[in-house]
């Protein structure tokens, strides 16, 4: 059937371009033969091969051919459309042809990289090119949709990544809502004592930024809150946030902590999560002295008033006329409208109990690195004194690398930060206690500015490095609390058994336990292990496949603080670019109804998850709201009369594609 916009579909003039991608494609696909085959297909006026179609000369080739041969349809066979579809549409548009008169063929990811047999690969490339050539003749000229972008931003996760991103955006004059599920922002960084390799005190560099978040006029900080649901699309998201009750009014509490002193519990009884259970807290608490916001929280699980209703409520008395304590506080659901979203939800540390051979949880003198961070921290459970659980100062300390990293049974990935933090802990433990430190590593990985120098420094300070993975941790025969670390020293080629007072496990980083739920809420993808997937590993490291949603920091993969901050800045910058543009162009792949053919059966109406299909009772026809339609095409496939259609995925286009892949060459 003739396409009304473009005359006879058979009279099209198609240009086909086969990319070598260096040897990436040309190595396993006979690109010359594919181009030759393309040249024989109906409607094809020009068929060429070129080394790099995405390069400027490659794009120029298309533009020049459009001029010279009056091409009106372009097919490029190269990489995934997820990588370069936009590039080539741009070239086609520059050449004066509607950018949607273009079809891309994926002969790299789907052919040359996965099919080593050149004959079979070439045959498949031929089939895919044939399909695109038959499809593209049906393409209609389309226009992208422009939607405005709200300037408000949501940042989820108040660790250093979220803090840095929020401050960057707020300084640029954008309003930011920062949502953090814990009672305070600060994340893991707030738990550390010093940071490698400069040994800056973590609190000294972090807490001023935390305070700045609270004080910033453009930031709304909702700590102790979680995002429940997200709807809408880039530029116009509607976000529902659940604000958990602290039972303390955050608008009134000044953080004086008199209520904590006054609590009927004279000493804490609940394990203090911030100190990883190594100290106890009261039912009314502030996670740590520099917490932001400076608002106390009541834990209803342990508070006597909540449990029995018969407490003397000395906290309320202490709060006096400020009346900040409110036992009746309820969960609040807030709804906000934002244009862009940044996810900075961080990581969790590997649970060392999953590897029982290292004795964590069995022997009291086995610690995780994060616990040691707290022991070394002046606001930690021992006020910075490096002592064992029984109060003794360790005289010999063993550090074991790669616990839950680079291990077939737990995580295959390298957690990237453990070598460096292990070196830092070796330095700090030796400095504070004078202990002999033995550091068991598989490979020492120190690729960062000043990292290798730090390793050398720690080695010069007398830390003993043993290349080998500890196979076993067991108590000494004397049963004196000491533990023997047994490992094969792969440099000396013998087995070492070293008795130590304290074992520190350099636990790896894992994706958050609820990364899957978060991923679903924000409609992004996770890779292996639950890390959020970036749009491109090199060229779009903080963007996601969902427009308007960025990721930064360790939620994307293990990362140290400098890299995390760099990503947070990058994500904030990309969000700002979109906000400043003021609008975004959306794919014109929406569905529409050809009213003349619509029988009014309403089959399509309940198919739409976005309620984009309305029914005009007067006309007896369905109608699709183009603004609400996200272009899935589910309504199109159920329409009995064929009146529901989808731009870019029209029935005739898809049938042509099916015919193309199946036609014999």
């Amino acid at each position: 059937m003739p396409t009304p916009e473009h005359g006879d579909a058979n009279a099209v003039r198609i240009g086909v371009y086969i990319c070598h991608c260096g040897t990436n494609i040309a190595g396993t696909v006979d690109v010359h033969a594919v181009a030759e085959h393309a040249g024989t297909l109906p409607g094809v006026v020009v068929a060429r091969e070129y080394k790099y179609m995405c390069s400027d000369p490659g794009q120029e080739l298309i533009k020049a051919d459009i001029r010279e041969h009056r091409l009106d349809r372009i097919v490029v066979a190269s990489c995934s459309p997820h990588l370069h579809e936009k590039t080539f549409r741009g070239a086609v548009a520059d050449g004066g042809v509607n950018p949607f008169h273009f079809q891309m063929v994926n002969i790299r990811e789907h052919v040359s990289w996965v099919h080593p047999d050149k004959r079979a690969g070439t045959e498949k490339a031929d089939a895919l090119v044939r399909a695109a050539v038959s499809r593209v003749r049906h393409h209609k000229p389309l226009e992208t949709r422009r939607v405005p972008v709200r300037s408000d931003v949501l940042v989820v996760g108040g660790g250093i990544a979220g803090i840095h991103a929020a401050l960057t955006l707020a300084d640029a004059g954008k309003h930011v809502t920062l949502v953090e599920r814990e009672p305070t922002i600060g994340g893991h960084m707030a738990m550390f004592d010093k940071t490698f390799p400069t040994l800056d005190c973590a609190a000294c560099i972090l807490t001023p930024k935390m305070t700045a978040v609270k004080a910033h006029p453009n930031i709304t900080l909702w700590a102790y809150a979680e995002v429940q649901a997200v709807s809408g699309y880039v530029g116009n998201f509607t976000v529902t946030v659940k604000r958990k009750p602290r039972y303390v009014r955050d608008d009134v509490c000044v953080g004086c902590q008199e209520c904590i002193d006054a609590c009927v519990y004279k000493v804490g009884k609940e394990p203090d999560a911030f100190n990883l259970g190594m100290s106890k807290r009261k039912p009314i608490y502030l996670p740590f002295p520099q917490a932001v916001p400076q608002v106390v929280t009541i834990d209803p699980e342990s508070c006597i008033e909540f449990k029995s209703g018969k407490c003397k409520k000395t906290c309320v008395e202490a709060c006096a006329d400020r009346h900040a304590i409110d036992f009746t506080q309820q969960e609040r659901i807030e709804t906000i409208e934002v244009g862009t979203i940044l996810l900075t939800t961080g990581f969790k540390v590997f649970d060392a109990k999953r590897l029982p051979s290292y004795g964590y949880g069995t022997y009291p003198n086995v610690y995780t690195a994060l616990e040691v961070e707290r022991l070394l921290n002046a606001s930690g459970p021992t006020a910075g004194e490096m002592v064992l659980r029984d109060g003794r100062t360790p005289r010999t300390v063993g550090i074991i690398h790669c616990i839950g990293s680079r291990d077939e049974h737990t995580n295959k990935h390298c957690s990237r930060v453990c070598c460096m933090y292990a070196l830092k802990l070796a330095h700090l433990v030796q400095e504070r206690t004078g202990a002999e430190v033995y550091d068991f590593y598989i490979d020492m990985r120190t690729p960062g500015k000043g990292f290798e120098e730090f390793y050398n420094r720690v080695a010069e300070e007398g830390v003993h490095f043993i290349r080998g993975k500890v196979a076993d941790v067991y108590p000494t025969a004397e049963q004196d609390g000491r533990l023997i670390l047994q490992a094969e020293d792969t440099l000396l080629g013998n087995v070492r058994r070293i008795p130590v007072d304290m074992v520190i496990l350099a636990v790896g980083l894992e994706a958050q336990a609820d990364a899957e739920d978060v991923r679903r809420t924000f409609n992004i993808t996770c890779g292996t292990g639950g890390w959020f997937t970036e749009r491109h590993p090199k060229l779009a490291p903080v963007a996601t496949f969902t427009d308007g949603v960025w990721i930064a920091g360790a939620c994307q993969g293990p990362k140290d603080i400098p890299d995390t901050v760099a990503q947070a800045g990058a994500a904030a910058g990309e969000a700002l670019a979109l906000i400043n543009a003021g609008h975004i162009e959306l794919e014109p792949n929406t569905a529409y109804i050809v009213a003349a053919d619509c029988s009014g059966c309403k089959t399509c109406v309940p198919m739409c998850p976005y309620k984009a299909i309305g029914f005009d009772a007067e006309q007896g026809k369905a109608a699709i709201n183009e603004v609400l339609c996200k272009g899935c095409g589910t309504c199109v496939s159920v329409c009995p009369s064929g009146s529901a259609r989808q731009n870019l995925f029209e029935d005739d286009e898809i049938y042509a594609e099916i015919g193309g892949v199946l036609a014999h060459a």
Partner: protein
Amino acid sequence: MPETTTGSAAAAERFEPRIVAFFCNWCTYLAADLAGTTRLKYAPNIRVVRVMCSGRIDPQFVLDAFAKGADGVLIGGCHPGDCHYESGNYKTLRRFQLLRRTLRALGIEDDRFRLEWLSASEAEPLKTVVNDMVEKVRALGPLHLEVPAEAFAAEGEEVAAR
């Protein structure tokens, strides 16, 4: 592994099924991209037709593919609960089950028509699914329709003209 006889002549004569794969843009198409970037190797017998959502797959697409000579049809979508468009894959599942019954009536074996949930990270499972399906369809041999293909072929031009 059927027919792993020695000699390239035998290999050249081996039946190579043609399988049309309808993959959704957000999960399974990306899984196939990932298989490429991680250089996995799998059977070259599938031809991917990209749709935004598996919910877009009209049962007629499947019939058309068989009518035009496909030996198998594979549908790849997001896992239940993971649909980029909330629920398109559930609709695909319902249609798939109904369509499979229809295909059986037409004499098309179950192994020739598969629906698989493959997320963007599941390159390895994608490889397994493709290889497995190719082997099974290879074992079944070429598809011979018992009814004339024209009976259910949906020619693009005709559809547009209707």
